[in-house]
């Protein structure tokens, strides 16, 4: 990559951080909590974006940020009071600046309409926005700078000079007979310091006189930077009887102090003729392949990097690490399986293995923590979204954010943005009433949308709650009947009615606005969340508001699962979906319809499905009375009892996605590798349950056809 291009990438990355810092600061200013350092940080962010933009010639961006910077400068120096109105303009300017950065990143093709905001900023600063480009850098010729006197002095006392060792090495035939290799010996000398090798071929006879098992070569080696004669001798320790060896020492004059003292004005020490130590290190003679000595000793002086900052790690590297640890876990599992199989009373072994397992688990957690990030990066985009949506719909909205430091895997964060955007828009557009309606209903004109995140039970819960009108259940019901989604006489609970809005093709907005109605329905949001292994639920109280709750796994790399046996196959059920496991009595199993079954679980009937039959597993038991039943709960569709042959155990498995190779299969989420090296499929409970539900409803589905159930 062109170096400038690489720096540009750095610039845009840095812009993202600066924009976030800027927005954070502006929001603090909005709530009146900003101290002078926060205000200065906002100024600095705008200033830095401008400065970098100038280096890459983003003139429009620079022009806009200049006006913005001028306004921030006035606020910073106390000449402009950050009243709510002023901050509102600044916030909008921040949004525009972010658009400008995006436009510049996309090659400047999308024009940003900033005239209005620019005019408002100019009103604050009293500057004419038209001639507000960055002023041409003036030269201050009149300013006299202090004459330069740079003298750092002798900061690096030279190490005591090392002699040069001249080694003459002439192997006898016996050396070769004992399978010694001169090349290796010379290479070892090269480990002690830079060497210069010349081969002495003077003894080499004509080809006719050459005895193949005689030795004719000798080498002269000059070795630098090795203070110790014995080190040189040690190299030849094992061949001393089989060669002629001469080691002579050449004294070296103490070198002039390392070329470093600059003293003005002549700066002699920077001159090129003052360079004894840096003479090029010996190059080998062309025909002398043996001189390919490692130049370890030539390592450039390293400067200690004192920057203790967060590092930017290429995600690929981290992924590789995560993958490796995953493999390690599998290996450990395989190992313990084999040892348990072969050693009956291996108590000490198993104690060691237990420790290994413990350590590995810890290591895995630590490695995966590298990938986690606070949800802040997604949450931070929401204030702007709320501002814009509110402006478009004429509503007054306050956004409250809680738990933005909650950490979750980066892949989850990346895929959270879209559903969250949709839900927030939905809350403002459909959830909240207009100010007039709110006042009429006895509520404050300003509506509240609350976005929160927290860890609960190994998962992350994200909630979007509004204090709007709530779901109008009779309207939802009407609509669902109209669309043929439910039958007119269906008896649904409030919760079931609320969940109807997630069905494909459902839209309750009387008028399709250009905000929420962008062709993406809540069904897509739900699909996205389910693809992440999460669930979405809605709660609503008429007139008081609604609340969407997202439950997501913290990582997409591992899963706590229950291993079950079905016929010849082994499956993994995600632990998060399991409620309990039980051994049913045959009296509890009731036939239902033509081939459906119900299980009586303490008085409640739950659909019972044999996993073996459903997936047509060879060798599966069909004797339900002898099966183990696992009660699972699926998102939205309710509970279901899955009959399996036996429970094998419970463990953490590494998820191996096969979607890129095989594609999506309903009912199967992914695969994993078990301790015995076999592949086991991880069941997608939601898919399974949904498939079965549709099946019992009598509608043939793709899923049933695919499985032949």
């Amino acid at each position, binding site marked *: 990559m062109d*170096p400038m291009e690489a720096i540009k990438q750095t610039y845009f990355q840095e812009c993202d951080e600066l924009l976030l810092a800027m927005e954070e600061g502006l929001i603090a200013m909005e709530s009146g909590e900003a101290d002078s350092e926060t205000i200065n940080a906002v100024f600095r962010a705008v200033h830095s974006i401008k400065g970098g933009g100038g280096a890459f010639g983003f003139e429009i961006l620079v022009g806009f940020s200049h006006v913005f910077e001028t306004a921030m400068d006035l606020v910073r120096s106390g000449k402009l009071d950050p009243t709510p109105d002023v901050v509102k303009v600044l916030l909008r300017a921040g949004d525009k600046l972010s658009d400008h950065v995006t436009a510049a990143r996309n090659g400047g093709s999308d024009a940003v309409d900033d005239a209005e905001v620019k005019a408002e900023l100019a009103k604050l600063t009293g500057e004419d926005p038209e001639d507000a480009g960055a002023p041409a850098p003036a030269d201050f010729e009149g300013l006299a700078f202090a004459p330069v006197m740079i003298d750092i002095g002798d900061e690096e006392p030279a190490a005591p000079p090392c002699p040069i060792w001249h080694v003459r090495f002439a192997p006898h035939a016996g050396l070769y007979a004992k399978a010694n290799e001169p090349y290796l010996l010379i290479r070892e000398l090269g480990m002690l310091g830079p060497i210069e090798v010349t081969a002495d071929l003077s003894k080499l006879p004509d080809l006719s006189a050459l005895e193949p098992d005689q030795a004719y070569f000798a080498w002269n080696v000059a070795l630098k930077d090795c203070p110790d004669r014995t080190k040189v001798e040690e190299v030849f320790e094992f061949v001393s009887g089989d060669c002629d060896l001469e080691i002579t020492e050449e004294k070296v004059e103490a070198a002039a102090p390392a070329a470093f003292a600059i003293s003005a004005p002549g700066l002699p020490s920077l001159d090129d003729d003052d360079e004894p130590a840096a003479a090029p290190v010996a190059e080998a003679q062309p025909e002398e392949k043996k001189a390919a000595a490692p130049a370890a000793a030539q390592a450039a002086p390293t400067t200690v990097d004192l920057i203790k900052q967060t590092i930017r790690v290429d995600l690929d590297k981290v992924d590789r690490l995560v993958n490796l640890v995953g493999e390690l876990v599998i290996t450990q599992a395989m190992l313990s399986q084999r040892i348990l199989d072969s050693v009956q009373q291996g108590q000490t072994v198993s104690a060691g293995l237990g420790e290994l397992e413990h350590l590995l688990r810890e290591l895995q957690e630590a490695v995966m923590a590298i990938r986690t990030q606070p949800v802040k990066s997604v949450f931070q985009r929401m204030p702007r979204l709320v501002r814009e949506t509110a402006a478009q719909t004429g509503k007054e909205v306050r956004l409250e954010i809680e738990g933005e430091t909650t950490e979750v895997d980066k892949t989850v964060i990346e895929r959270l943005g879209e559903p969250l955007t949709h839900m927030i828009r939905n809350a403002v557009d459909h959830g909240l009433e207009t100010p007039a309606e709110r006042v009429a209903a006895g509520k404050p004109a300003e509506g509240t949308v609350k976005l929160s995140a927290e860890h609960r039970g190994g998962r992350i819960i994200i909630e979007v709650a509004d204090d709007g009108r709530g779901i109008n259940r009779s309207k939802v019901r009407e609509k669902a009947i109209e669309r043929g989604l439910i039958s007119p006489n269906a008896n649904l609970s409030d919760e079931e009615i609320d969940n109807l809005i997630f069905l494909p093709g459902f839209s309750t907005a009387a008028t399709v606005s250009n905000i929420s109605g962008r062709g993406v329905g809540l069904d897509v949001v739900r699909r996205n969340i389910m693809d992440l292994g999460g669930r979405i639920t809605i709660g609503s109280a008429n007139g008081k508001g609604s609340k969407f709750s997202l439950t997501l796994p913290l990582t997409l790399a591992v899963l706590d699962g229950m291993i079950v046996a079905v016929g010849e196959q082994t499956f993994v059920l995600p632990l998060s979906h399991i409620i309990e496991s039980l051994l049913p009595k045959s009296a509890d199993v009731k036939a239902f319809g033509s081939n459906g079954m119900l299980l009586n679980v303490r008085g409640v009937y739950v659909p019972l499905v044999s996993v073996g039959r459903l997936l047509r597993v060879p060798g599966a038991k069909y004797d339900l009375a002898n099966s183990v039943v696992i009660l699972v709960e699926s998102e939205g569709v309710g509970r279901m009892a899955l009959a399996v042959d036996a429970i094998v155990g419970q463990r953490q498995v590494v998820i191996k996605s096969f979607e890129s190779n095989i594609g999506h299969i309903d009912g199967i989420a992914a695969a994993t590798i078990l301790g015995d090296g076999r592949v086991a499929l991880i069941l997608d409970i939601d898919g399974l349950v949904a498939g079965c539900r549709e099946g019992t409803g009598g509608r043939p589905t793709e899923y049933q056809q695919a499985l032949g159930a």
Partner: protein
Amino acid sequence: MPQASKIRAVVVDDQLTMRTLVRSCLQQIGLTDIREFPKAPEALSALKAQPAHIVFSDFNMPEMDGLEFLRSIRSDPSLKGIGFILLTGRADADLVKRAAQFGANNYLVKPFTVAVMKQKLEQIFGALS
């Protein structure tokens, strides 16, 4: 003629992009020993541990600004001989004047070119090879 490759430089700017740009320009001029610091206090202690010939520093930085940094350098007997070039975002005559009073050796207005940077360096070190 002094060799550019022997000049030890320290670059201080809170912005990674700027540090990288300065480094890139310096490398094009021929410098090889370039250390970067996002904050002045870190740079100050690093300079005490291992001096440099020239410092490029931004003005507006959190914790310690460029002038404060310059003053700390000039008031430390072991560091006061170091060359100091102030990087400024705009041609702010007052700022440059104050920098000159504090003992800056030169200034550089962002954005800058390699040619301008070389010229400023040569005003300090003489023609570079």
